């Protein structure tokens, strides 16, 4: 540069006297430097929120460094999906610093920022000074909606899965290849290593949308946070607050939480189930976590019928409340459906026993091989104990009700699974097995049969997408070579001495007017198909078996053959009689049963407190 002193040099500045100024004469003129008139296209101005898309997860509120966002419940909005709520962010522009972090973290991209930025307010001068701050603050708090949506600014495009801050890609646990895993009953999923688990756990936004979806409202965000902190013990302690069977749930839970996971709206949900499996697998001794909560015994005696998840959970929490609990089990091992119904490749027996033993170690008495109604009468139980909990679950399988059902080679799903778990199945190598049904039991049957060397076809009344079984299971079954027949309604089973052929009709699906799953309808035109079948396994559901209960009692509690009506605390119409598990739950899975056990424990506590 030329930095020589020159008194005349500044005179050159006078040339601007004859040049057009570069002033932007706002409000007459606007900036014209960007591709669009006005301010920059990605400006961070006032928010817009698509109220229909917003699920009210509250992540924006939690990430706000200025604490400017509050989630407020509104009447005029509809929840976006069945897990969503009607809370919507309401933003205080007396706090907002327009950093855009709420937009980055919005899992649905419903919250965006617009290019509108002008808002000024003049407080009413007639207000007294005491009232004035309120009126000011009120003017600067509003619920963002679509008002500024026609002028979009800073946003995260919906397809942008690289995201701003949310990690949309799930880290699946390692699994054996289908060709490998179909050869044996060994567990084929390798639960997370420490690094994998921590990586997956850090995807969690901690919003707690999953908590509401979980039938038992586990402390999911807390235990995931503990994992990402690298502390499986703390994580397990959080799980134990509401679930005494962590490892079982970690392996085989129906994980509705993952359906609700907000990360899953645009990407893949967190593997909440596998994270739970990780923390319970990595704590060798549950006792450290469990023991410290034990309370002083209070001398009251409780009894639970059936050693399934509901009773175990009931026993655990009742024990923590100080009760003396006895569990009666008809079989020789505890666990119920978990023991007999779930194949080993999904839940190894030693993992099952690890959970159950942790509970039993608390001092709960388990009496196996005792059949209530036969060995001990139910009335005696009611007399001997302060309260009775029944968690016997569904043990009476539903039948196909078609011709040829009584042929040898036709079996019920649960019966088949029990054989599988006892390793007493007939030789299936090279045999053709037809499985009827589309639930998780059907999948277990099909995949167990595959592992036993059979050629398996699953026949289901509706489409694959309508199957109640977990999608993951269906996919894995397909990978393992299970054939699926959609919309197949069983008609007849042929055979001389034993099953030879299975006939079904291809139904047409009629939409359900009530909005449920479509109904399969078979008419004259429906084509009939026949397949060869050496075994037909009907896995189409089960009913409870309450034969051990006296008739009048069954009537009094309102048992209709399928379901026992109970309240939130598992209470029935009879004092001191509590029900839980598949018997009374709307959803029939382990986690619901655990929840029922927990609530019943609380219910018993309330009931006995009121008895005093």
């Amino acid at each position, binding site marked *: 540069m030329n930095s020589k002193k020159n008194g005349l040099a500044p005179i050159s500045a006078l040339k601007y006297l004859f040049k057009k100024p570069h002033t932007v004469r706002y409000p007459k003129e606007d900036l014209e430097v960007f591709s669009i008139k006005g301010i920059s296209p990605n400006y961070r101005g006032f928010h817009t929120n698509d109220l229909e898309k917003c699920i009210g997860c*509250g992540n924006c*509120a*939690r990430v706000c460094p200025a*604490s400017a*966002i*509050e*989630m*407020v*419940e509104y009447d005029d909005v509809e929840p976006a999906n069945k897990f969503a*709520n009607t*809370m919507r962010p309401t933003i205080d522009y007396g706090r907002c610093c327009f950093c855009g972090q709420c937009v980055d973290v919005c899992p649905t991209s419903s919250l965006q920022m617009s290019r509108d930025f002008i808002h000024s307010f003049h407080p009413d001068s007639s207000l007294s000074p005491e009232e004035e701050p309120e009126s000011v603050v009120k003017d600067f708090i509003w619920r963002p909606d679509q008002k500024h949506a026609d002028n979009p600014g800073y946003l995260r495009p919906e397809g942008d899965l690289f995201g701003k801050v949310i990690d949309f890609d799930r880290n699946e646990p390692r699994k054996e290849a289908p060709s490998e895993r179909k050869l044996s009953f060994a567990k084929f999923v390798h639960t997370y290593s420490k690094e994998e688990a921590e990586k997956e756990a850090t995807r969690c936004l901690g*919003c*707690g949308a999953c*908590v*509401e979806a979980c039938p038992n*409202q586990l402390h999911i965000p807390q235990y995931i946070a503990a994992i990402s902190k690298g502390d499986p013990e703390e994580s397990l302690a959080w799980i134990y607050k*509401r679930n005494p069977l962590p490892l079982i749930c970690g392996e085989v839970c129906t994980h509705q939480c993952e359906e609700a996971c907000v990360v899953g709206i645009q990407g893949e949900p967190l593997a909440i189930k596998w994270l739970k499996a990780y923390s319970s697998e990595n704590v060798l001794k549950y006792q450290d976590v469990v023991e410290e909560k034990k309370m002083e015994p209070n001398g009251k005696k409780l009894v639970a019928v059936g050693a399934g998840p509901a009773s175990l959970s009931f026993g655990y*929490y009742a024990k*923590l*409340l100080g009760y003396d609990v006895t569990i009666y089990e008809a079989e020789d091992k505890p666990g119920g459906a978990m023991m007999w119904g779930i194949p080993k490749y999904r839940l190894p027996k030693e993992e099952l026993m690890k959970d159950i033993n942790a509970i039993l170690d608390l001092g709960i008495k388990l009496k196996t091989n005792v059949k209530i109604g036969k060995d001990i009468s139910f009335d005696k139980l009611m007399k001997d104990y302060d309260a009775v909990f029944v968690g016997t679950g569904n043990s009476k399988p539903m039948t196909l009700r078609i011709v040829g059902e009584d042929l040898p080679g036709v079996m019920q799903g649960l019966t088949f699974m029990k054989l599988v778990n006892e390793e007493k199945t007939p030789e299936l190598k090279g045999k053709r097995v037809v499985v009827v049904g589309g639930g998780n039991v059907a999948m277990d049957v099909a995949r167990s049969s595959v592992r036993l060397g059979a050629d398996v076809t699953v026949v289901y009344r509706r489409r694959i997408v309508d199957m109640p079984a977990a999608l993951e299971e269906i996919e894995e079954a397909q990978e393992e070579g299970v054939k699926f027949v959609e919309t197949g309604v069983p008609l007849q089973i042929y055979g001389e001495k034993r099953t030879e052929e299975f006939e079904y009709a291809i139904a047409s699906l009629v939409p359900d007017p009530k909005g449920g799953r479509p109904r399969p309808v078979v008419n004259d035109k429906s084509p009939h198909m026949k397949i060869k079948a050496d075994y037909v396994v009907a896995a189409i559901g089960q009913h409870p078996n309450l034969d051990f209960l006296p008739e009048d009692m069954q009537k009094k509690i309102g048992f209709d053959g399928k379901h026992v009506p109970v309240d*939130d*605390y598992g209470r029935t119409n009879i004092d001191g009689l509590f029900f839980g598990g598949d018997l009374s739950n709307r959803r029939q899975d382990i986690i619901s049963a655990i929840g029922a056990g*927990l*609530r019943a*424990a*609380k219910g018993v*506590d309330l009931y006995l407190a009121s008895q005093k």
Partner: protein
Amino acid sequence: MLKYVKTLNSMGLKARPLGDWEFEVLTPKERVAETLSYLKGSGFETFIHLMCVDWIDDGEFELVYNVESYGEAIQALVKTRIPREKPSMMTMMNLWGLCQVYEREIHEFFGIKFEGNPNLEQFFLENWMDLPPLRKDFDTKEFSEELFGFKEDESHGIKAPERIEYK
């Protein structure tokens, strides 16, 4: 850099490199002056900063002196810990006059007395009577609520689902 680390280690202090341009020296309170004057003598002439960390769980304050050598482009962090109860430290003003303001600041924000520093009056704050604000046991939100009179529920209205707890 390694030669300083070595020398300092031979002096019985714990020194280790931290990054490409930094190394740290852990010294007991009494040897800070000695360490710093050694460093100043060997070219670390610029005083970058003095800061304090409140390790409330350990019951200690950590003082970090940061000095830099322009000649060799390396930086030394001299760290020392002093007890949190009635904390005091000797001033380093005789080495760098600049320490005066840093020490005054730390006295204000942490309540550490610097012996020999002539002016430890309030600096950034005015009429401050509470705990020194950067101590961990000072709750700024509570203070703000109390003094500026506003209340805030930190849950932001995010409702936890109703759980029936067994207890």
